[in-house]
């Protein structure tokens, strides 16, 4: 019993793998995930660089006890949240419909 199910899954694997839709889906995911993580890490590391080489700018008063450095520091939380939201939107809008198309394709072909 297990052999037949193995064999039938294998055909589905091959079908999906060869389909241009799947290649596209995977490249879409990669094109999003890797540049986004790189941008995100650079933004963090740049903040640390700014903090150490532009102390004057970072110490600029905005109001009360709040200076530019502190504001940008708190912005890190905001950007983290923003990126996650963007990712979820992207996945809902581009990845899920693509997955749906692949499923239709397979069901139609099978």
């Amino acid at each position, binding site marked *: 019993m297990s052999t037949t199910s193995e064999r039938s899954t294998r055909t589905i*694997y091959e079908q999906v793998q060869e389909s241009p839709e*799947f290649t596209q889906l995977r490249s879409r995911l990669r094109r999003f*995930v890797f540049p986004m993580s790189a941008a995100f*890490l650079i933004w963090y*590391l740049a903040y640390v660089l700014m903090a150490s080489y532009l102390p004057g700018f970072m110490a600029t008063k905005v109001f009360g*006890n709040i200076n530019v450095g502190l504001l940008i*520091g708190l912005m890190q939380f905001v950007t983290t949240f923003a990126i996650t939201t963007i990712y979820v939107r992207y996945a*809902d809008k581009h990845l*899920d419909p693509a997955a749906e198309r*692949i499923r239709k394709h397979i069901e139609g072909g099978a």
Partner: protein
Amino acid sequence: MDGVTTTGVYALVAMGIVALLSAVIGSLGVRVARSTSDFLVASRTVGPAANAGAISGEYLSAASFLGVAGLILRDGVDALWYPVGYTAGYLALVLFVAAPLRRSGAYTVPDFAEARLRSPGLRKVCTLFVVVIGWLYLLPQLQGAGLTVATVTSLPPWSGAVGAAVVVVATVVMGGMRSITFVQAFQYWLKFSVLAIPALFAVVYFFSGDRTFDRPAPPEFPDRTTVQIRTDVVLQVKVPVNITVTGVVDGVAHSGASVRWETGRHTVLADSELQFGAGAPVPVVEGAPVTDADWLTPFPEGREFGLLGTYSLIIATFLGTMGLPHVLVRFYTNPDGRAARRTAVIVLALLGAFYMTVTLLGALSRLYVPQLLVSGDTDAAVLLLPSAILGSGWVGALLGSIVAAGAWAAFLSTSSGLVVSIAGVLSTDVMGSGRVRDFRISAVIAGAVPLALSLGVTRLDFSEAVALVFAVAASTFCPLLVLGIWWRGLTDVGAIAGVLVGGFLSAGAVALSLAGLGGTGALGVLLYRPALVSVPAAFLTMAIISKLTSRRRPADAEQVLLRLHAPERLGLSRDRLAERVRKAPT
């Protein structure tokens, strides 16, 4: 002293209620649990909101609840990297591994390793590191419970650690994961509201007063303050100050004598008592910025290689989160990928709100509890803040005890998650069955070992202790997960070599620096924060050895990768757990 006792009684009652509530919610859940799979992954039927609460509740540990505020109090803006990194690490987890790992059907790193590379050897190595990372992470949690009990009551620290360990193991043994999910969600909201209340009070005080941070002078004692010194400290004095001393200071024994400290360094031995007048400038422990202006400046003078240390910290927290066993398993409790993503967004919002609150409390404690800068016990800041702001009357005592209960919730929730993860791995991989009885025995072992350690090892600052664990996780499981998910060329030999190289470099470096062999140069900084070297080393080793052993590449690598990246709706993902439960003898 009266205030301390009142708070102590209130606090003990509040902590008892938290423990009891956790146990009750836990035992309600147990009726729903039907089999081992229910226990371990909550049947994947938990809603995104409850699940997000649970993830956040589990993630916000002693390091977050007490440690972040403590480091902000002492180190200022430089300490912002801890909360930012803890949040960012979560994002890295979501982007790189969460969805593919869900699809793999593996809910622990050893499971993933086996599904991907079919190597029992790699599985053993991963099991070892899950247990090591889990135990190291449990250590500061139990010590945090000890510190909390010792700070708000006069009981010895060990009683708090033992109490926390017993409650955690009992809850896990009785309830398993299903119940834990609701306990965790409850504990997140408890932790957050408990800190939000003093934060609101504090903000009102803060804006109504005329206090400012940006002064080129040390902070001042708001009132006449007596500081108990528990361990030997070296204090930096910037502005000369008059003190009444009982104990040994600068090598001279005093008994209630008046002493004037000139600018410079002064040594105070343990068990001394220093009394400062209202408005006196605060001496600050060695290594921390002295003046408020320096405290607000990144990398103040005297902190060498700040950039190197901070980069290494960011790498560790950014990449380490995905390797923490208790965080990873949670993603499996979502019914599908869409729910997993919704969960992730809610979690980020919950974490961000929490960390901003703790950061605010840390800054305010510089105004209200500066005596911690003298004694070095900065981790107690959040616990002492309510009574410092509101006085030692019943309002202050009540709020103080609620905060202590929140801290207690932090240790309980993180520790429960860790004990569940360690016990899961021990029962399936070491005891070999994954049956409920073995799971329970494993839970007892998972709690007992770190308890014994926590009673014997000297305490580090919580956030720093946790950052060390992040470095080990980032150097071992991060490369394995990222390369395993995104690179078809990974082989079992390459993976084992990489995990071992990363693990020994990071753990070894930390052990060397804790033994005092580090020094203060660039090498010392890297020994204390090894991620900048150990993470790339692990990645490189894994990639190079895999290239050299490319004949060992599993034949089904393409298929496994396809399953990891194909959307769930294709129905290709396999429920490994369901398979195992079906196979397991009952």
